[in-house]
């Protein structure tokens, strides 16, 4: 079953086209990755899917609902973790979870969710006192608080140490195993390779390749006598249409 369907999505800021005719579909239960360098149009694409930005052209539907349609119904289905989105300094972890859970008709158990992201001990800690990794994990928990059927996670492991990254990956797989479809934005090759069932490689606002990580790598063959990895595949696919 198709959960997300993006068709000819185009978004311009002024006269700069940041997303240029992007189309793809995401199936239920998939971990779908959007891989690309900074400025490739990844975040704008997922912000359009989340309903935070209005596309200049093209259509997006999530569970058959047009993203320009029913705001509330759509937001109950989609949980979003945004890049660089903070909370009030003095808001405590438990208070944030309780408050956000009250926004949804059928929220997850916020204590269970805090335990799943390893923040049970921080329940009374104000947001400003959390470490970068803890803020990131709280952000993931808030994205999942409404029991969404789609989770959109933007650069979720940026700023995490290796151990915390692997913990987070495990959490994402658990979320998927519960039947949640995951749309993951990343610029980390290892994350894309380990976690994603399929990858859309973005370059200059367009999708230059869309396949499983293994197939993307297999297409490249050997590089300098070594077996290629995802980074080789990525470099071979991107950067061709650039000015410099």
């Amino acid at each position: 079953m198709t959960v997300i369907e993006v068709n000819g999505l185009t978004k311009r800021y002024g006269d700069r086209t940041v997303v240029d005719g992007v189309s793809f579909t995401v199936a239920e239960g998939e971990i779908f990755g959007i891989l690309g360098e900074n400025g490739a149009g990844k975040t704008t694409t997922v912000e359009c899917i989340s309903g935070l930005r209005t596309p200049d052209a093209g259509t997006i539907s999530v569970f058959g609902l047009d993203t320009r349609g029913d705001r509330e119904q759509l937001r109950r289905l989609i949980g979003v973790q945004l890049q660089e989105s903070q909370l009030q300094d003095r808001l405590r972890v438990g208070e944030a979870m309780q408050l956000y859970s009250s926004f949804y008709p059928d929220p997850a158990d916020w204590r269970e969710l805090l335990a799943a992201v390893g923040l049970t001990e921080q329940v009374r800690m104000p947001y400003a006192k959390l470490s970068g990794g803890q803020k990131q994990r709280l952000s993931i928990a808030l994205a999942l608080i409404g029991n969404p059927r789609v989770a959109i996670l933007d650069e979720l492991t940026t700023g995490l140490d290796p151990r915390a990254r692997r913990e987070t990956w495990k959490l994402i797989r658990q979320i998927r195993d519960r039947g949640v479809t995951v749309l993951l934005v990343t610029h980390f090759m290892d994350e894309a390779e380990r976690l994603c069932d399929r990858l859309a490689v973005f370059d200059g606002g367009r999708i230059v390749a869309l396949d499983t990580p293994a197939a993307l790598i297999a297409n490249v063959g050997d590089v300098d006598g070594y077996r290629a990895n995802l980074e080789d595949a990525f470099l071979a696919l991107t950067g061709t249409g650039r000015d410099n």
Partner: protein
Amino acid sequence: MSALTRLAGSEARLFLREPMSFFFALAFPTVLVVVLGNAIPAFSEPSPDFGGERPINLYLPVVLALAVGTVTMTSLLSVLSQYRERGVLKRLATTPVKPSTLIGAQLAVNIAALVAGAALMMAAAAVVFGSRGPENWPALLVAFLLGSAAMIGVALFIAAVTPNARASAGVGSLVYFPMLFFAGVWTPGDMMPEGARRVADFTPLGAASQALQDAWHGGWPQPLHLAVTAAYAVVTGILAIRLFRWQ
């Protein structure tokens, strides 16, 4: 319970945890009146220069205007622009609750704090100096309401047109200090020079202060001052709604 009341409850808790906003909104008007009244003995003695009135009595309605200006130009303005800059509004935009609900909650909290701070100040003035309080309550409430609405409009407008929290704070203080002058903080009652008063009539806080002073002394505000404050409230409010960016 609606999302607005839950958010207002949460914002109220955060407001009380912030020592600066707590002090400036709730305690500042009272502290100012009590300190001034005690530090300057002549302040609480009837004076022929003020037609036999006690200067403190002339000052109390001006302090109300000062309280309105302080809460809107410091607490409200900085919180709104910070919430945008830090992505708090954007995060809320991903939930079924609209980010404008959080702004509504902030307005409710600031208005409540303003009213509490003003009430505390009037009670302190009554206890410490035996102030009789305002002589025309309905007029005072109208003046307070319109003055607050005008300054809330100005705060929303500044938050809408400035690019970040730093710029909001800068523009806020650039507006705040002249506004205090026109409100008569340094020249209460009839002490303001005629030329300055003519300008003050057309500033939101100056008009509000005049209206508050008229009401305090038993009269009704001049139509000009009511019209000026109402016009600021409507025009800046509409512009803010049109121009506000959520991220």
